């Protein structure tokens, strides 16, 4: 027990003297450490790399131009494995070994919620993208910012689209995960509000299976005029293939991230006719194009890297918040992020522009690559652009863009 006592005392001493360090010149040169925890393996595997690339690209650029508060930013990447068990271990390492000030980039709501108790306890900021309606429940300190609107907001727009196209009877299918389960509830409610209804029971399947033929067959047997499928690309591709090969001729409505380039490559011209929608990066907007170019992608008028652009905003907001607060203490940074994100002030889209305003002592309003990034009190987005598309000749053709208001 002697050893542990010594460890305890020394760790307590470090904790107590930490603020003192910050005031010394020595600390000025110590790097700012930020954790990037993205799903590189597991169900989120297809979406993780673009998020971690965005973090890395912004940090490289900021460091090349003098860093934050004159200090170097050190980004430490960890794999959430899209699994809360692994994510909690990784978060402990980030928080306790690397002493990160913030953890960015978590994707699955189960992971974000899983590490939230740790982050709250250690006063670590979380910026992430997630849509489970339960996300705000875990935060009691005002330390979370979510770049993705919650499910409720998506469901309204998609139900609206279905009804406009004459589909009042829509079946619902999705993997049995947090995201799809709450999407199913929200969609059913929105559809009912418009006088429509869900065909049969909402149909859930287990993701990560070898074959989805039986599931597709079950949907075909229900014979609905349209199906709304809230899947991720990993399960959406095989289910969709089985639906087409099983002879389903009704309308498919889905979420845009399931029908990205991966999907179109995989199914070719059979993708035509799918209706899809989701919160979108503002295509053609300068901030979105700037992000794409930063990570080496040519803007082409299509939705690309729909999660990467949120990661770009996560890291920009986090770094700007620290620069403005002149601190890495999470409550100060969170307060600064609220000012930066919501304004009022001059529009900025990058860290460099924001830093210039901070140096000049002027207020700003950050306008992001994924959205205008304005937050409610609970850290959820106020609104986000939402677009509805139809796939024609292998390309997304825009039907309608709306701005969904999450505060209603």
């Amino acid at each position, binding site marked *: 027990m002697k050893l542990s006592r010594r460890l305890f005392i020394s760790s307590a001493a470090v904790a107590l003297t930490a603020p003192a360090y910050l005031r010394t010149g020595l600390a000025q040169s110590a790097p700012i450490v930020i954790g990037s925890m993205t799903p590189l393996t597991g169900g989120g595997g297809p979406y993780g790399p673009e998020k971690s690339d965005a973090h890395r690209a912004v940090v490289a650029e900021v460091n090349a131009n003098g860093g934050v508060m004159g200090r170097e930013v050190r980004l430490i990447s960890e794999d959430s*494995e899209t699994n809360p068990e692994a994510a909690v271990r990784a978060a402990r390492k980030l928080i306790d070994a690397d002493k990160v000030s913030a953890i960015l980039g978590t994707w699955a709501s189960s992971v974000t919620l899983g590490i939230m108790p740790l982050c709250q*306890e250690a006063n670590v900021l979380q910026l992430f993208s997630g849509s489970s309606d339960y996300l705000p429940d875990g935060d009691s300190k005002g330390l979370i910012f979510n770049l993705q609107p919650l499910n409720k907001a998506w469901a309204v727009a998609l139900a609206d689209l279905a009804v406009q196209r004459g589909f009042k009877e829509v079946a619902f299918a999705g993997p049995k995960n947090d995201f799809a389960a709450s999407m199913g509830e929200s969609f059913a409610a929105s559809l009912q509000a418009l006088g429509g209804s869900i065909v049969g029971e909402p149909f859930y399947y287990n993701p990560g299976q070898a074959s989805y033929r039986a599931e597709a067959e079950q949907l075909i047997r229900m014979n609905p005029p349209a199906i709304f499928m809230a899947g991720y690309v990993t399960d959406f591709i095989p289910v969709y293939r089985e639906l087409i090969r099983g002879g389903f001729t009704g309308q498919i409505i889905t979420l845009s991230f399931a029908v990205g380039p991966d999907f179109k490559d995989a199914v070719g011209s059979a993708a035509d006719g799918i209706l899809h929608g989701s919160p979108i990066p503002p295509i053609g907007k300068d901030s979105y194009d700037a992000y794409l170019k930063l990570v080496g992608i040519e803007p082409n008028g299509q939705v690309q890297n729909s999660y990467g652009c949120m990661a770009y905003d996560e890291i920009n907001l986090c770094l700007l918040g620290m620069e403005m607060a002149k601190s890495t203490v999470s409550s100060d940074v969170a307060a600064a992020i609220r000012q930066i994100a919501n304004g009022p002030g001059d529009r900025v889209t990058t860290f460099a522009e924001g830093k210039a305003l901070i140096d000049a002592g002027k207020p700003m309003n950050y306008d992001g690559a994924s959205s205008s990034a304005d937050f409610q009190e609970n850290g959820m987005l106020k609104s986000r652009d939402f677009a509805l598309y139809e796939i024609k000749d292998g390309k997304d053709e825009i039907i309608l863009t709306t701005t969904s208001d999450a505060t209603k």
Partner: protein
Amino acid sequence: MDAYLVAILTTAAIYVILALALNMQFGLTGLMNFGVVGFYGLGAYSSGIMTETLGQPIVMGMLAAMIVGGTAGALVSLLSIRLSGDFLAIVTLGFAETMRLAFNNEDWLTRGPRGFLIMTRPVLEGLGRDATAWFILGVFLLVAAVVFVVFNRLAGSPFGRVLRSIREDDLVPATLGKNVLAYRLKAFVLGSSVMALAGSLYAHYVQTVTPDNFTTQVAVLVWMSLIVGGAGNMKGAVLGALVVTAIYEGTRFLAPLMEFLTPTQVSALRFIIIGTLLIVVVRFRPEGLLPERIVARPAARDPAPG
């Protein structure tokens, strides 16, 4: 770094308990339970439901976990009592997978994929962050120590020797008039209830459990602990769990050395290293770091408790 060490040791303590429990089943008795994670998850959820849904104190949660885990162990054991070797492994693996599906789909009880939030913690109120972490570690180490002492005792007792003889060849104890099935049942139930106890500790430590917490990966790590440490030897199980946790956590620190790889590749490389290490240990040190030493002792004073 200190706080991180505390966190790792806390996780390691849970793996120590799991490895000890598996050692009772596999190391001593030769029962291949690949469903470790099923009992572990059952314990976590039972305990969470006891303390959160039913508002009972944490001790009741731990007790409930052990009872539920033990009962499930008895059922699985009775169902598959005549199976041995890899067939038992497959059935138990199936049990674990089925449990995970149940956690995911029985929303009314487990909140399904949303995750079960657990507020009850095994600490005194009003401690600071560091003190809380140390306190939890202390509690877990205490539980691990108790499990170790009890199991170590059992292993050296006549009960343990019957289990070992069953592992070697179940004809011999049968001829000596021992009820082989009853002994196997006892070993399995004992192990399963302790696995569930570990699940209970884990749940109150991480405070959010979701079905994804209980994937086969955890079972693989526990098995790795036991094989690396030395099956049959309780000290080996402890050492193995510590070594495996150190490897799993230690490989994280390789990432900064490999800036030229993408994070996806670094993460893949970590798993490649872990898998390779396991194969290397099995190949070159099959008896594990601390081999089992079977010492013929005079009959112990205390008879085997049931």
